[in-house]
C-alpha cells in the first residue's frame, strides 16, 4: 500500500498520540446547526474538554439515506434553523480560534458539496481547519469525485467499511483511505441496532489484515458500557445518535434548546470518554 497518498493531519497525529497512551479514542458526532447554529457552536466548543478525542460534525442534508430517525431529525432541525454548508464551515473557523489541536471531520452526503463546488469546498474546508471527510454516498467506485482531490488538498478521506464489505472488496475500499477506517458495525442505519462485540472484534481483526490504518467503530454505540466494550477491540468508538437524542429531548415548544442542554450533552460525552479511557485498564 502507498503511504505518500496519506496526508498528515491532526487526525493522524491524534491516533499516534492515542497509540502512545495505549488507549482507544472517543469520536463524537453532532449535526452542525442542531438545534440552532448558535447553540450548536456553543456545544461543540465544550466537547473536546468534556472528553472527545476527535470531533465529527454532520453537514445537514435533506435526504440522509444512511441515517436512522435520530440523525434524520437532527438534520431537519438544523436545516429548519437555517443551517447551510458555508455556516458549517464558519462554525469550524470559530472552533479553530479556540482549539487548534482536536481533529475535526466533516461527515455528510455529496450533493451539498457538489453544489458548493468541489475545488472551492476543499480549499475552504482546509482553510477552516478541517482534517478529514466522511462522505457516505461516495464509495471507492466514485473516488474521482472527491476522495482523490481531497488527498491532493491535504485532507484525509475516511472510508466506511461494512459487514457486507468482504475480503475481496476490502483492498479496494482501503486503497485510498487515510486518517482511519470507519467500520460500520451493523448492516443498517445509524442509531438503531447494536452490534455484538465478538462480531466487531473479528471484523476489526479482518480489516487490520488489509490496512495499518487505525480502525474506528460506529453505528449503534449508545452507552458508556458499549463504548468501553468497543474500545477494547478498536482504535476508537464513534457515538452520534445518542448525543443527538439528548439535544432532541431538551428543546422547548419552539424548538429552542432548554437551559442546561449543553451540560447534559457534555455530561454524556464525559461518561462515554470515561468508558473508553478505562476500557483497557
Amino acid at each position: 500500500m502507498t503511504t505518500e497518498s496519506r496526508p498528515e493531519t491532526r487526525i493522524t497525529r491524534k491516533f499516534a498520540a492515542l497509540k502512545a497512551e495505549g488507549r482507544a479514542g472517543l469520536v463524537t458526532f453532532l449535526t452542525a446547526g442542531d438545534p440552532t447554529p448558535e447553540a450548536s457552536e456553543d456545544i461543540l466548543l465544550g466537547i473536546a474538554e468534556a472528553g472527545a478525542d476527535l470531533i465529527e460534525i454532520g453537514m445537514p442534508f435533506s435526504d440522509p439515506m444512511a441515517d436512522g430517525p435520530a440523525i434524520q431529525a437532527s438534520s431537519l432541525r438544523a436545516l429548519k434553523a437555517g443551517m447551510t454548508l458555508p455556516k458549517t464551515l464558519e462554525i469550524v473557523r470559530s472552533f479553530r480560534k479556540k482549539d487548534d489541536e482536536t481533529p475535526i471531520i466533516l461527515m455528510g452526503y455529496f450533493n451539498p458539496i457538489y453544489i458548493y463546488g468541489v475545488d472551492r469546498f476543499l480549499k475552504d474546508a482546509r482553510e477552516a481547519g478541517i482534517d478529514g471527510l466522511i462522505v457516505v454516498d461516495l464509495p471507492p467506485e466514485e473516488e474521482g469525485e472527491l476522495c482523490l482531490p481531497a488527498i491532493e488538498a491535504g485532507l484525509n478521506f475516511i472510508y466506511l467499511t461494512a459487514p457486507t464489505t468482504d475480503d475481496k472488496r476490502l483492498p479496494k475500499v482501503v486503497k485510498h483511505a487515510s486518517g482511519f477506517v470507519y467500520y460500520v458495525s451493523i448492516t443498517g442505519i445509524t442509531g438503531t441496532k447494536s452490534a455484538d462485540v465478538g462480531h466487531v472484534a473479528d471484523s476489526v481483526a479482518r480489516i487490520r489484515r488489509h490496512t495499518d490504518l487505525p480502525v474506528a467503530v460506529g453505528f449503534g454505540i449508545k452507552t458508556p458500557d458499549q463504548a468501553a466494550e468497543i474500545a477494547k477491540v478498536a482504535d476508537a468508538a464513534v457515538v452520534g445518535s445518542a448525543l443527538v437524542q439528548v439535544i432532541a429531548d431538551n428543546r422547548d415548544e419552539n424548538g429552542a434548546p432548554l437551559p442546561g442542554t449543553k451540560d447534559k450533552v457534555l455530561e454524556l460525552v464525559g461518561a462515554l470518554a470515561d468508558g473508553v479511557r478505562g476500557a483497557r485498564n
Partner: protein
Amino acid sequence: MSKLNTYREGPDETGHFDIYGGRYVAETLMPLILQVQEAWDNAKNDAAYWDEFNRYMKHYVGRPSPLYLAERLTDHFGGAKVYFKRDELNHTGAHKINNTIGQILLAKRMGKGRIIAETGAGQHGVATATVCALFGLPCVVYMGETDVKRQRPNVVRMKMLGAEIVPVTAGTGTLKDAMNEALRDWVSNVDDTFYIIGTAAGPHPYPAMVRDFQCVIGNETKEQMMEMEGRLPDTCIAAIGGGSNAIGLFHPFLDDDSVNLIGVEAAGHGIETGEHCASLNGGRPGVLHGNRTYLLQTEDGQIVDGHSISAGLDYPGIGPEHSWLRDTGRVNYVSITDKEALEAFQLCTKKEGIIPALEPSHALAHVAKIAPDLPKDHLIVMNLCGRGDKDVDAVAGYLGMD
C-alpha cells in the same frame, strides 16, 4: 455537443451516461449493488431469461398493447395523425408491470426471498404487490404518508394483494422520502431482500435495467407503426416523472434521426412559481438516490419537494439517461401545467372514451399544442402509459363534480 454515432450504447461500465448516473450509495449497499449488476449482466445475455419475461408479457400482462389511431382527436386537432400506444391496457393499468415482472424474475434468479419497493401514486406499488402475489414472495411497500392519504384506492389494492404498506413520515412524507426509507430497509436487510425500483433511476444498473424492460414499449411501437403506416413515426411523446415509460418508448428510436422525441415534464402551477416537478427545465445536476441527474434543489444543495397534480410525476429527480439526452439535444424536454393536463384529461375522456391517468394527460396536452400546426401526414405516437381510474376522485374534486 457533436453528434454521436449511436445514442444507444450507454451507460459505460461504471454506470455513467457522460457525467450522469453512477453508483452513489453507502458502502453497506455497494456489494449488493454489484451483486445485482452481476446478476443482471448474466440474465440479460440469457435467452431463457428473456423467454420467460416475454411469456409473462404476452399471457399475464396482455402485450403487445395496441397502437391505436385516435381518429376523433386527430379530427379535433385538425393536423397530425395521433396514435396512442395503449399501455394503459396492461394488467394493473400502467406500464409499471413491464418492469416489475423483469425485476422479480431477476430477484428469483438471485434467490432473494423478500421484496421491497417505493411508490408515489401507487401504480408501481400495485405492480410490485401484484408480481409478489404471483410469485408468492412477501412484499413491503414504502409510501409517503401524504400519498397514502391521496391515493387510497391503490393502497387498498396493495393490501388486498398481500403487501405490507409502510407510511413514511420521515422528511416531507413524499416519494423521495419513500425511496430513502426503502434504501434504509435494504441496508438493514441485505441478505434476503431485493429492491424493485419503480423507475429508470437509482444506482447503476437500475437505470439501464429498467429501461431495457420498458423498451418493449418502443420496440412494439416501431413494429406496429411499420405494419400500419409502412414507416416510422415522425414524433414520439411521453410524460416524464422518473422517466421509465418515456425512455422505454424513446430508446428504440434514438438512432432514427428522422424521429423527433419529446419528453413532457410536469410544470405544476408553472415553472416560474417554483411549484413544479420539471427537473430538467427547472432544476440542475446533483446527486441523490444513487445517481447524478437533474434535481430540484436549493442553492445549498438541499433537495426540495416537487408539486404536480399527478402524484406519479411528483419526484424531484429524473432518470440519468434523460439528463444526458437533454444535454446532447437528442430529446426535447418541454413542460405542461396542472391546468393544461386537466384539460387534456377531459378531452381524451370525451372524445375517445378513454379515461387517461393524469401522467399521460400531460403528454396529451403537449400533443394538443403541436398537432394542429403539423401536416396531416405527420405521425405522432403518444404513450398512453396509464389509465385514469386511480385519478377519478381527484379530478372530480378539481372539477367540482359531486
